[in-house]
């Protein structure tokens, strides 16, 4: 099958309202954010490779420089890479194809979303131009964010632009999923990825506005002199932390859910199995996760002070999260059971993800327990925990998604050798980076410190190992991303359905899909599911 348009026209990209092209614009933007935020991570690691100033100028200004790196690394990775990489790129490209729709419900609003996201990237990158660089982490806690010389408004507007983009995308995709499924496609016949986006976007719709209001009040406090977070004048400094985490804890599920959705798709296709316990994973896993996601945020305030009964209640709700997550994980493992598994690059990442899920998930339990979290909470143990589950697990899901759908998106096959070598660098590198941080975290290495000369001298050795690991990861990332670019240009031509998948985006479209997606309207019957393999 041929697609109508040939050749590259810039106006067909920057003015595009087609969901596939918008998805690719999301991918380009999020990979750009990922690269710059990754460089920040390297700077952080180099600085920590020895106690005392390493690459910062001196002990007096070192903290300020280090804070800027922390700010950009956190804000860009979460707001600029993970969320737009999953609910932006992957949802945009795949979701309409999976439900058999010719586009999303509101293509122009979709284009508005992607450009708002890009505007957010531009504002975030202003960090490197302005003299008063923002230095408020990705959390922007007052009173520091109100009193710092850094430019907090850039942080606030980055959140506003990305947040508005997310809200519009959520409205758009929720309507699309509810009303534009192919005739005959029932709710229990949806792809797991569609379900995971549906639930993640409900979280976006409800919780992002609360973050938007929190940072707006921060802007007022900083620039209009209001007193929302100023206890001296009747405000409440913990109010911000509550509003912030009310969104930002569920935000980890916005990342986690589509990441799981991607691995379900890959596992089912590569094992040629139906999803194990589909309904339990969807209703007991994803839907229950959304339902209780809004009741756990206070565990981020364990160290900010709260009554004991509240701490105890939060411990219970936090541990309760392992019920839906456990159901989803069981079904992920079960999907592989007795399958004839094709072990290729997406499966490499998938298998690694099972391990990351296990380590990252299990290390969350001590952090939820109030007694242990007093000891571990503000150490690099926490840092390693959330990098395993939220950072690396989710990053691997984006990589797996690009690798898995690469033939469909680009019409070409990836260079397998380079992809596999890149994977091993990534996988070995993250383990070398974060295991030492678990260990010294237990021994008391605090988070966010650039200078740890007052701590036991043997911490430096662990930090050095972690820094070496970070560079190994960097090599793997460069290999992975350059592989996409090179293979998209000169890779071997792909067939329409190289993995033999039963999902609509593989079986019913051209490679790559043209405008309007499907050559003829799609209908499915009651026996069809994306996972019906003989």
């Amino acid at each position: 099958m041929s697609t109508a348009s040939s050749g590259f026209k810039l106006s067909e990209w920057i003015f595009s309202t087609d969901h596939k092209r918008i998805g690719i614009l999301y991918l380009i933007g999020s990979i750009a954010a990922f690269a710059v935020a990754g460089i920040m991570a390297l700077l952080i690691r180099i600085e920590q490779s020895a106690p005392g100033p390493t690459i910062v100028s001196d002990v007096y200004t070192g903290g300020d420089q280090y804070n800027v790196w922390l700010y950009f690394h956190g804000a860009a990775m979460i707001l600029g890479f993970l969320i737009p990489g999953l609910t932006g790129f992957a949802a945009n490209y795949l979701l309409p194809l999976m439900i058999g729709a010719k586009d999303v419900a509101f293509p122009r609003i979709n284009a508005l979303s992607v450009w708002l996201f890009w505007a957010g990237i531009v504002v975030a990158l202003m960090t490197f131009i302005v003299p008063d660089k923002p230095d408020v982490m990705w959390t922007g806690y007052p009173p520091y964010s109100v009193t710092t010389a850094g430019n907090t408004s850039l942080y606030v507007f980055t959140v506003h632009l990305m947040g508005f983009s997310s809200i519009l995308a959520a409205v758009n995709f929720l309507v699309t999923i509810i009303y534009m499924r192919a005739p005959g496609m029932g709710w229990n016949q949806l792809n797991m990825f569609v379900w995971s986006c549906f639930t993640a976007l409900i979280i976006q719709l409800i919780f992002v506005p609360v973050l938007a209001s929190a940072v707006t009040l921060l802007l007022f406090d900083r620039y209009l002199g209001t007193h929302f977070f100023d206890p001296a004048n009747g405000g409440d400094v913990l109010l911000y932390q509550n509003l912030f985490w009310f969104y930002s804890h569920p935000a980890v599920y916005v990342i986690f859910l589509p990441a799981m959705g991607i691995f379900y798709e890959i596992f089912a296709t590569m094992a040629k199995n139906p999803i194990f316990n589909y309904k339990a994973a969807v209703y007991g896993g994803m839907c229950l996760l959304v339902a209780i996601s809004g009741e756990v945020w206070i565990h981020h305030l364990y160290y900010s002070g709260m009554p004991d009964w509240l701490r105890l209640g939060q411990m219970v709700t936090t541990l309760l999260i392992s019920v839906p997550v456990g159901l989803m994980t069981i079904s992920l493992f079960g999907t592989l059971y007795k399958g004839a598994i094709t072990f290729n690059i997406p499966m490499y990442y998938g298998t690694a993800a099972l391990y990351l899920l296990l380590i990252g998930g299990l290390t969350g339990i001590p952090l939820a327990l109030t007694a242990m979290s007093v000891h571990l909470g503000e150490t690099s143990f926490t840092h390693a925990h959330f990098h395993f589950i939220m950072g690396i697990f989710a990053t691997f899901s984006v990589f797996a998604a690009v690798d898995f759908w690469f033939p469909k998106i680009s019409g070409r096959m990836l260079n397998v050798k380079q992809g596999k070598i890149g994977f091993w660098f990534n996988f070995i590198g993250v383990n070398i980076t974060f295991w030492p941080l678990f260990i010294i975290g237990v021994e008391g290495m605090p988070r966010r410190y650039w200078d740890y000369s007052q701590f036991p001298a043997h911490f430096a050795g662990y930090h050095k190992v972690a820094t070496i690991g970070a560079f190994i990861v960097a090599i793997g990332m460069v290999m992975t991303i350059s592989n996409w670019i090179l293979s998209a240009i000169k890779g071997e031509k792909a067939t329409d359905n190289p993995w033999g998948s039963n999902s609509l985006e593989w079986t019913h479209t051209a490679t790559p899909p043209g405008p309007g997606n499907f050559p003829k309207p799609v209908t499915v019957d009651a026996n069809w599911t994306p996972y019906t393999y003989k």
Partner: protein
Amino acid sequence: MSKSASGHAQPHVHHWETSAAPLLIVLGILLLVVFGFVSWFSYNNILYTQICAGLGVPLLLAGIAKWTAEALTQEPVMEGLTPIALPIFIVSEVFIFLGLFISYWTMRLSAGPNWPPAGTPTDMNLVLPIIMTVILVASSLTFHVAEEKMTHNDIGGFRLWLFLSIVLGGIFLGCTIYEYSHLFHMNFKPSTNAYSTAFYSITGFHASHVVVGLGAFLTVLIAAMAGRTNKYLTFCVGLYWHFVDVVWFFVVSQIYYW
């Protein structure tokens, strides 16, 4: 695809759909709101602010005009989805206002009997909010009449009653500006105390929604002047306006009368 083109029905040629409107709007927002704010508040640079606003406003207006023109002339991907999407969006708006009100309630309740805090004028005007409520409810009613006129294909009546709604909304905004300047005159500013903090933030945030609603009304009116109407668009604009109206009840009861 087809064997030979002669006489055979050609397959429908698709094009990549494009629209410049979203990019124009985003550039406008970026320049006017973000860079304008940053130039003014962070760098106190009036020239940069003027340049950003001078470029941002036309881009934003051009984007909105183009968007509206396309929305009224082109076929949607699927008919009739906007009246479903807008209420979903309003859920989101509800949570923004909840965030603001929760902040206010936190300060209000933790203050205990020391409310209103020192610095608040003892003679706050409590008649004006009632008048403003009447005006806003009246504008919702006039818009309802406008919608009725449209369902009876009375485009002239639609324009007239829509125009009346815009006038009433404008008077409402005028009242806000009058009230603000009066209070500023009495040295009651956003930075004065906890009450002024909540007062200006919440009424100001509501007023910004009135501005958006009026902008939407104007867009519909201009399109109606050119003879183009769309029942879904009108419904959505009206629903948004009613929502702003409902929020105002909370503003009045919580901010002025509690």
